């Protein structure tokens, strides 16, 4: 790969700064959530963020065409990893979602699977000359790609990630256009599948979570406890919050999974309405910027990838914040970058890196100009 000087010149510093602000907010928040139990969590996250930022920059310099070329390999690697995790994975609270690499590092292949799904769909739409709206028969191939990954993730089972993959690819399919008849068909299919899912795929604790969400008072100290404590944490932050490392709900461990799924509750408690809205605005800006990039994209592939990455951030943020604030059921969906976890950080950075690369090449003819010189 040739390093293109125009690329360096086009490097988008404002969006890089936005990412860095989100990273710093996340790290500060994680520090507060974990300093009592030693800083190993914080240090690991710091390492992941640094690695992620470098990865993001590296990826951004990759030519989109190269990425397109490697799409099938990424997809196959993802499938293999998901099969490996089912065989070799270690079980944590009922789910086989993790592969241990040595005693310190564990990776979560299901997190990574989101990017290959986006790439595969992008490639499908790029190569497909049919124009919208698509019908069900046109989409057999992408549905198979998505369904295979969803199935593998469901087998772990990792309900949250499976839901994410469905939501991201669903958004893409809708964005690219779908016939009304097919929309109705998918709706019927979703409802039809939800019953066997409920009976065969969901474990008791997952059913309990959904039932508890529908009626939180049925078990205030059981599954509803997490949601209630999280809402108390957020609410008690009031306008300006209780201050860094001063959130009683956080520091006295009333909030469950403070580093991961409930990281936003920690932030909302300690920084109040000001901090939580500030953070939400950061994510809004990020997603709007990705969509903006999509609208300028030179190729269909680039556009679909951008929309996919935008959907990934959008759904993660909506589902996670909705969950911790009690408007959605508790599903294990992290808030990208803010929640602790190497796999989800790397996935997020990977996605942004690709979008950045597309953004840097948004000027028509820019690439050709360099190549001719």
């Amino acid at each position, binding site marked *: 790969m040739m390093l293109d000087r125009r690329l360096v010149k086009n490097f988008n510093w404002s969006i890089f700064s936005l990412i860095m602000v989100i990273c710093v907010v996340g790290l500060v928040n994680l520090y507060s959530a974990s300093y009592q139990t030693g800083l190993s969590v914080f240090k690991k996250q710091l390492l992941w963020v640094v690695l992620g930022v470098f990865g993001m920059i590296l990826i951004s310099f990759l030519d989109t065409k190269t990425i397109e070329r490697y799409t099938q390999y990424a997809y196959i690697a993802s499938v293999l990893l998901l099969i490996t995790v089912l065989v070799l994975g270690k079980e944590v609270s009922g789910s086989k979602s993790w592969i241990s690499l040595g005693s310190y590092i564990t990776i979560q292949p299901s997190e990574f699977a989101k990017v290959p799904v986006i790439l595969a769909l992008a490639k499908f739409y790029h190569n497909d000359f049919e124009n919208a709206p698509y019908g069900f028969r046109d989409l057999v191939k992408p549905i198979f790609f998505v369904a295979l990954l969803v199935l593998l993730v469901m087998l772990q089972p990792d309900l949250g990630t499976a839901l994410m993959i469905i939501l991201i690819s669903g958004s893409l399919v809708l964005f690219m256009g779908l016939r009304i008849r097919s929309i109705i068909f998918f709706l019927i299919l979703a409802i039809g599948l939800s019953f066997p899912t409920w009976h065969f795929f969901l474990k008791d604790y997952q059913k309990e979570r959904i039932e508890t969400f529908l009626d939180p008072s049925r078990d205030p100290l059981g599954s509803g406890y997490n949601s209630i404590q999280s809402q108390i944490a957020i609410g008690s932050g009031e306008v300006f919050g209780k201050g860094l490392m001063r959130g*009683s709900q956080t520091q006295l461990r009333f909030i469950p999974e403070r580093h991961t799924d409930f990281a936003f509750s920690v932030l909302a408690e300690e920084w*109040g309405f000001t901090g939580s809205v500030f953070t939400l605005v950061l994510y809004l800006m990020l997603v709007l910027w990705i969509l903006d990039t999509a609208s300028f994209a030179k190729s269909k592939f680039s556009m679909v990838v951008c929309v996919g990455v935008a959907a990934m951030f959008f759904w993660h943020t909506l589902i996670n914040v909705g969950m911790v604030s009690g408007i959605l059921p508790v599903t294990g969906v992290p808030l990208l970058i803010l929640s602790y976890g190497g796999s989800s950080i790397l996935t997020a950075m990977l996605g942004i890196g690709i979008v950045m690369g597309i953004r840097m090449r948004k000027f028509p003819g820019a690439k050709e100009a360099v190549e001719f010189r």
Partner: protein
Amino acid sequence: MREYKSRFLIATFILIQAFLILVGRMWYLQISRGDEFEKFSLHNRIRFVRVPAPRGRILDRHGREIVVNRPSFDVYVLPEDIKDPERLADSLSRILEIDVVEIRERITKAFRENRFRPALIIRDINRDQLAFIEARKSRLQGVLIEVNHVRKYPHGKLGAAFLGYLGKANEADLELYPDIRGDDIVGKVGIERNWETYLRGEDGFIQKVTDALGREVRNNLFERDLKRRDSIPGGDVILSIDLRLQKAAEEALGDKFGAAVAIDVRTGGVLALVSHPTFDPRDFVRGIEAKKWKELIEDRSFPFINRATQGLYAPGSVFKIVTAAAGLKEEVINSDTRFYCPGAYTLGRKTFKCWKKGGHGTVNLHRAIVESCDVYFYNVGERLGIDRFARYIAAFGFGSLTGIDLSERAGIAPSKEWKLSALKQPWYTGETIVTAIGQGYISVTPLQIALMTASVANGGTVLKPQIVKRVVSSEGEVLAEYGLETRGQLPLGEDIISKIKDALKGVVNEDRGTGRASRLDEILVAGKTGTAQVVSHTDKVERREHNDHAWFTSYAPADDPEIAVTVMVEHGGKGGSVAAPLVKQILEAYLKIKKGGNV
């Protein structure tokens, strides 16, 4: 990609909608309901630890301590800090002398309930055990000592019959006092129960920060939120009892079964109230052991009965005071009326004996009282008839509660109506005759006899006995005061009362008086002996059960009465020789106290 432009617009619109929903939710939680959630988070982390209020003391009329408090060192374990439960159970068992299995059970239970909350092992360990635990603190990790208040009885069993005891609240108590909890200690009987609301005080609290697991957090970060409220000690109950007189009365009765009552004839204040035998309130301090409780409950000497207010006995000849009063007032007799006593009285085919075998010969009322002639009163009783007699019996307060704020029984004031309703039988004249000498159906408590005596002594006022003078808060404020209360006036003229008083003086001071054993040189005593036959004596094996109850009731000084003293010795024998000397002892103590200062 121009053809997607409208889709980007739609997507952006959806995006902003979702963003607004989330911001709206934040607004709702953090702004609209922020204060509410702030309170939730405060309650979440704050645990109230109760600071028990010291119970009020029980003092005598001069403020001398009768029941007070002392610290109790209670042993708790905090499961979180226990390294080796087995070894800890072994060591504790050796130090506290409790069965290992029992301690192990309590530790296991503590682990099960909450690892971070101290669980009680045993209350009130002694000083040696305390020293032992303190010295080995490093090796007894997880063991905590907490200080509480428990009752202390500096005079042991003194006054137990009316002081009562404490115990764990039962369901009835919980209903009675809405602000107490299941494991609280409340007064079960006597003063402790009847003045419970004054004695208890108000518990305070301190707040502690706990984490989600209930573990106490010593993190000064959140200490500014902590509040505390000091406990308010209970009010002191000031009795009308005089500690020294009470002691003297208890000593006088000694190990005899029976009761002694001393009351102020002017106010109705109870100066001493003895019932023997009694339980030992010290057995209840740590919570009574089941075995001990069973023993007390099954004890045939009835240690839980306050004989002075709940014990029912035939009054015997002390009741002749009532018969004489009724006879004089109804003009069946006057002071000159004489009857001949041959040693027995015949009614129809029945013969009623006088206690003196040879008889008293011809006697007037004065001699009949002084020498306690039964035949004289048989005559009075027969001439009165039960209907008229019953009015006087009731007027003296028999057959009804005295109104003392302790458990008491009313006894039986016999009448035609009573017999018809209680026994469904008609009244016989013979029964009037035995009633005249305090035998038969009549049954009274020693307190009732003391009040009868007081009403004669004070010129005819039937008083309500007062055991408590007042209740004073820990800050010295008077919370309640109990003054003189009268229940009625005897329907007797001054002349009748003085005639009876004259005779009662004779009982003690004349050569042939039956109560000479209570005579004192320094003070003129008046009184009346009684020797009550125990009606049910079919079983001849157990001697004591057949012996008569010995009564003596008195007041002094005879000319300006201050105090009435009544002693009843269960199965003691003759009132004159058994009860009268005890009264003398009590009156001597009274004089000594009086000389030393006020009573």
